[in-house]
């Protein structure tokens, strides 16, 4: 036989197979289109699925960097204000010392008043050194206590550093180091101011050496502030990098998992046409047989 016999069964098979195949294509496209997802299950694109999972976790880490950077900037701004105020307090102390030197030993009452002022400045300095952010003293390292310095001016913080991770492998310190900013041991600014205040009442002329000490203390704070400024800049740069990384990650993820709506619209129309054609031919072809032409 040269031509294939067409039978009731074979007609039904081919018609049904065409209808099922086109309708399953249509159903698949509709599922994608209505969910907006290109990948409905891992088998749709196994490597894309794994990539999408890794991109999502990278995005979560990136979001964490953004939170960390905001927190770091808040710590650093608090420190910045404190540094400026500290410098200003130390400069006032220097002015008072100069005043004491000029007055000399002649006016004990005036010297006592200056000494009292210096003690007052010392107290504000201790308060500044205990500046806290979110309940934690910014110069106290990682101490669990609420203060970096006690009322006598002794350091009660620890040597740890508070750090924030603001980018991949980019960790910055956000706390100031108390002893590095305010001096350590007997040479710290609190001891120095106490000694200046007591010398002021006894022998102001001996204070000439204290001016250079104060200058050294001021420059220590300024250096720390400059360092903090550099870190601030670094965090801001990291934030910019994080924002562009975030955009790039979103774009990459979208290109993998999101449907291309325009392409999908064309595909759906094509599939729909194929489905209608399959239905129509099946319906019309099976209508006739020789019986229709016999009388």
């Amino acid at each position, binding site marked *: 036989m040269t031509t294939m016999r067409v039978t009731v*069964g074979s007609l039904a098979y081919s018609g049904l197979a065409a209808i099922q195949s086109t309708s399953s294509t249509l159903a698949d496209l509709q599922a994608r289109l209505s969910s907006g997802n290109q990948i409905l299950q891992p088998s749709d694109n*196994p490597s894309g699925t794994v990539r999408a999972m890794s991109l999502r976790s990278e995005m979560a880490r990136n979001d964490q960097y953004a939170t960390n950077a905001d927190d770091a900037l808040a710590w650093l701004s608090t420190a910045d204000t404190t540094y400026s105020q500290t410098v200003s307090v130390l400069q006032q102390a220097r002015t008072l010392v100069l005043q004491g030197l000029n007055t000399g030993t002649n006016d004990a009452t005036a010297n006592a008043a200056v000494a009292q002022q210096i003690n007052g400045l010392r107290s504000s300095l201790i308060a500044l050194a205990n500046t806290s952010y979110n309940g934690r003293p910014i110069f106290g390292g990682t101490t669990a206590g609420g203060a970096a310095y006690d009322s006598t001016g002794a350091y009660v913080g620890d040597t740890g550093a508070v750090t924030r991770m603001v980018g991949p492998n980019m960790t910055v310190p956000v706390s100031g180091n108390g002893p590095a900013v305010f001096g350590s041991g007997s040479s710290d600014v609190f001891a120095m101011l106490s000694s200046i205040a007591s010398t002021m009442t006894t022998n102001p002329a001996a204070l000439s050496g204290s001016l250079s000490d104060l200058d050294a203390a001021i420059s220590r704070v300024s250096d720390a502030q400059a360092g903090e400024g550099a870190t601030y800049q670094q965090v801001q740069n990291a934030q910019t990098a994080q924002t562009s990384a975030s955009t790039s990650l979103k774009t990459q993820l979208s290109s993998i998992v999101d449907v291309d709506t325009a392409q999908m619209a064309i595909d759906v129309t094509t599939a729909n046409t194929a489905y209608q054609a399959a239905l129509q031919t099946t319906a019309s072809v099976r209508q006739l047989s020789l019986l229709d032409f016999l009388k």
Partner: protein
Amino acid sequence: MTNWFAGIGQAMSGLDAARYGLDVVSQNIENADTAGYTRQTIQQAAVVTPPLSGIYTSRTAQADLGGVTVASTDRSDDPVLDARVRTEHGVGASMDTSASTLNMLQGVLGEPSSTGLSAQLSAFWTSWGSVANAPDSSGARTVVLQTAQTVAGTLQSLSGSIANVATQTSASLDSDVSQANSAATQLATLNGQIAIGNAVGQNVNSLLDQRDQLLDTLSKLVGGVATIGANGAATVTVGGQALVSGGSTAALSVDASHQVSVGGTAVALTGGSAAARVDLLTNTIPGYQAQLDNVANTLVAQGNAIQSAGYDLAGNTGAPLFSGTGAAGITVALTDPSGIAASATPGGNLDGSNALRASQAGSSTTGADAVFASLVGAMGSASALANQQQSTQDAVVSNVDALHASTSGVNYDEEVSNMLTYQHAFSASSRVLTTIDEMLDTLINHTGVVGRA
């Protein structure tokens, strides 16, 4: 010399053959849509009675003509194609089962999504970042424990879902085996009827149709390989062991370790849905379950290593975060948020560097995230491959089905055309009978009446 009345008998045989032809046409048309029905055709043969030697030899040129007879009623089947259809159906059933079960398994994972285990692991690691930022915040610490609970709970439920798929597959395997046993029993009965029918010359075509359907069922279920004997009875072997032989059957069984046996002898199935189910139950599903257990064990090791490397809020070395083994057994052991080892140094300080390290653990290439990603990748690839093979096999199956339908199916045009042929044959034979009748009438009633009034 032929008998004067022989023509009547011949015409009678023509009428009979035409009537039987119409019977077969009718049977074909009525069963055009019957599943498994094979079109039947009649073979007619002219009957010639050989001259009897020694009696009359002078007129041998006029051999005795005996009319027509129906030599046989054939089934329009092609045994080679039938065997090929069975084989492809067996392979197709195996692939359909693999693909649908693998799809079910990957559906269990629920990836890729923003809510699956992968996203939950991300949230868990990220929660450590918040603790690093605020080691004194009990809220941030509580979130670590909560996200750890979520991850552990999801691992448990994933493990349970995979075990459910295994249970369902095992139940389906049992059902395959019991259906195959019942088909084997029916086949053995049919074998007996076919053998007897053939021996006594009965038309056994409809029994053969039933036999072929059972053979197809056995191939789809357990990859039964059939051999058709000379008497029409079928022998079926499964994995090389005889399941049905003539009128006797061996029992097909499956044990708790999913080993299929025929008559007590263990066999390796080569086709049918049962073969796919045995492979899924003994290799694929336990493999995935082991990989999921590996995810859980890696997470337990990671979480506990982080804890033991750090110090909790009170300054003590961190206690284990997770306990248990395997995805089904993982639980969160730590209940006190202050027990989270955020600090890298002892002494009860507010250092967060250990927590910071933990927040980066999600990117580890040997961590739980990576192990889970490779599981999802493996499942996705296996499923994609199975779907691909299934659609290829589907094309092969519809091709052989179409060939089979074309060979064995009924075509109305053909039947109607045969119907017309038989109708005309009947009319023509009737006309022959009428003509002979008229001739005899002439001979009997109008001969020797010359001169009568």
